[in-house]
């Protein structure tokens, strides 16, 4: 069964044509790694997949619902099924770690914020949040403010929030890009373990080619708003991946004429 199906997806910001016709399908339970240089449109694609951005043309089906045409209620229903992990963690810095994890249940609760505020939430919900924190080994940090913990820990809190949401699809936008190599690997391992446990469908963008060749079933490579590569991970070699980062990779490309002008005079 297909979980995500994207057909001829286009998205522009004013005159900048970012997504230029994207097509792919992801089967239920499949783990896909998305590669591509800075500014090639990965984040835009991912934001289109849960309706944070509206595509201009084409369709994006998530479990059969078309995001391009969904109304506000359908969009909320659909977003509940899609967990998102961001590069910048996107935790509410002023609040406690525990509160941020509780927020994961905001979509599923009828009373939204009121049901997920720590003083008002019911015991079952609070216990579930604590379980999620334990799963990412941060139970001892529950009472800390988010700004008091390290980047790697913040990303683990964000993962706990997603776990709390109990989605069937996970979208991770460069989840380890701002972490050091070892913290990055830890977070990646944790994310993949959780994904396996929960049998989620995954679309995860990465910048480190070494990581990309270790995780996931399939690689999708983007270049300047188009898909350049879509193949099973085992069949793609390093060279092929590296080629995604060469030439005209950005959608907002400025011509590169004189940046390697020969040097003439000497002092």
């Amino acid at each position, binding site marked *: 069964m297909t979980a995500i199906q994207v057909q001829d997806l286009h998205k522009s910001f004013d005159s900048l044509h970012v997504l230029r016709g994207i097509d792919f399908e992801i089967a239920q339970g499949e783990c896909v790694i998305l590669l591509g240089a800075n500014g090639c449109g990965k984040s835009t694609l991912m934001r289109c997949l*849960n309706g*944070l951005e509206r595509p201009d043309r084409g369709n994006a089906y998530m479990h059969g619902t078309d995001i391009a045409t969904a109304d506000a209620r359908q969009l*909320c*229903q*659909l*977003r*509940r099924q*899609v*967990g*998102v992990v*961001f590069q*910048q*963690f*996107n*935790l*509410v*810095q*002023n*609040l406690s770690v525990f509160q941020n994890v509780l*927020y*994961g*249940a*905001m*979509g*599923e609760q009828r009373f*939204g*914020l009121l049901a*997920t*505020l720590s003083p008002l939430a019911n015991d079952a919900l609070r216990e579930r949040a604590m379980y999620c924190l334990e799963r990412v080994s941060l139970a001892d940090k529950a009472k800390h403010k988010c700004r008091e913990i390290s980047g790697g820990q913040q990303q683990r809190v*964000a993962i706990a*929030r997603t776990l709390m*949401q109990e989605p069937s699809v996970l979208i991770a936008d460069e989840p380890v890009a701002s972490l050091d190599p070892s913290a990055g690997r830890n977070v990646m391992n944790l994310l993949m373990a959780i994904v396996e446990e929960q049998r989620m469908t995954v679309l995860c963008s990465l910048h480190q080619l070494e990581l990309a060749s270790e995780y996931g079933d399939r690689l999708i490579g983007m270049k300047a708003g188009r898909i350049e590569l879509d193949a099973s991970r085992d069949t793609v070699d390093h060279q092929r991946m590296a080629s995604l980062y060469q030439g005209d990779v950005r959608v907002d490309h400025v011509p590169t004429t*004189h940046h390697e*002008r020969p*040097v*003439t*005079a*000497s*002092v």
Partner: protein
Amino acid sequence: MSQVKRPAAPTTPPPTRFKSPPVFAWLLIVTFLALFLQGVVATEISVERLLRGAVNLVHFIGRAFPPDPTDINTIGWAMLETMNIAVVGVTVGVLLSIPFALLSARNTTPWPWVRVMSRLMIAAMRTVPDLIWALIFVVAVGLGPMAGVLAIIMDTIGFAARFFSERIEEVHPGPSDALTATGAGRLSVIGGAILPETLASMTATSLYSVEKSIRSAVTLGLVGAGGVGVELAAAMRLFNYDEALMIILVILVVVIGFEQLSSAIRKRVI
């Protein structure tokens, strides 16, 4: 060290060293000077009048000393009324400022035209001075503290809602996106991600509004909107300068006390 290699000449020349001041700046300077000179002439500032003013001032001070504490009871109650006006007005004003700010911040407004409308309303409340609001409300609801409270509410919204909405627009969109992505509704996202990030700054602004409101509540009495200002206006009009001085001293003590308290809290919050 090895030689540093440089290109012979850049293809793009560096920017010029001096810019001629724009015509607009010249226009501004000339207009300002003209207004200033005309103002000096029109207000008839003269040494002779200044001297006469100083003499009158000495005369006033002579008659005001020593301050007359016989009516301290009445003054005390009137001062309390002023504080009531300030506290009630600023509390309601700050509470009303939050919805106004949410409606007029770019990232929380439901529709752009609502934003334009509420910004216009806030601007109107801010540009009309508090004394004029008081005059209007004295006409509307009659003499007394209620007119003062309404005037303070208007003044507070005009000031606080603007700062709140600017702060709300500065909030990083990431956390709101994250909560939206869980399928949460708009109000939940605003309450869960945006308001918590603005709370500290809103508290500081609110405390500043308190200081501002106690000062304006005093003057509002001068136009009959209740409080100690009414007493002060009466004492001045009846040439009871010693009583007036007493009232001024009480105002001084209370306002300074209020400001100290509020800035102490503000420091603790930030």
